[in-house]
């Protein structure tokens, strides 16, 4: 195993996702390279939501870019995420 292999770890991450209205999270395991928007859509479906443009918010409150891979958006194994709407103000 190369040094890079050790630092990169497994190709998946497991996260806890809250739908803000619900006190109970759901756990998901995704490929690190999965797009944030695709993962958020999957999470929204699991919560029974028909959200237009779902994304995630991390524990510091930052809304994540739907077009980035999870790992590039800073999502790490064990993180807690919130399912939120990606839209801006008008």
């Amino acid at each position, binding site marked *: 195993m190369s040094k890079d292999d050790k630092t990169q770890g497994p190709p998946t991450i497991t996260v806890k996702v*809250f*739908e*803000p*209205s*619900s*006190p109970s999270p759901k756990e998901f395991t995704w490929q690190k390279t999965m797009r944030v928007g695709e993962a958020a859509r999957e999470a929204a479906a699991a919560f029974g939501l028909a*959200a*237009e*443009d779902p994304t995630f*918010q991390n*524990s*510091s*409150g*930052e*809304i994540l*870019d*739907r077009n980035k891979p999870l790992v590039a958006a800073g999502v790490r194994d064990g993180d*807690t995420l*919130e399912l*939120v*709407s*990606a*839209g*801006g*103000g*008008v």
Partner: protein
Amino acid sequence: MTVPKATTVATVEEELLGVRCYAERHGWAVSWDPETLRLTFDGTHPSDKRPLRVIAALDGYRALPPAWSFEDPGTGAACLPKPAPVLGQSSIFHDGCGICAPFNRCAYKQHAGPHQDWGGPESWLNVRGHVQATTLAAMFAVIVGHLKASPGIK
């Protein structure tokens, strides 16, 4: 549209556990006053660390969206977070109505806001193509996300 106060209280209290859990995860304290139908969130602006109170006036909820506002908890003076784009999209913070989003009653023309193109505040759950939040916790989560991008309080 008139919603009996008892209906609004019951509706809000059904959502309150989710609201409190979300707020706790993000460092905000929640107060709910069923007499005045005001839900308040006390915390600090993530950028300039000044104390900030976020208020939802809930008369008419859920037939109507809340009327959201901000104040300095020390003085009670109205205030507004500075807007900054979120992922290339406009901030929800707006000089004219506080929060310019379908989930804020103050954004509608009928309530002195800029929007007459959303079908009126009674249609708030059906507005598409803009930031969506249909529960109090989801609305506050959007507000927290836009506060995170905001450089401070005006």
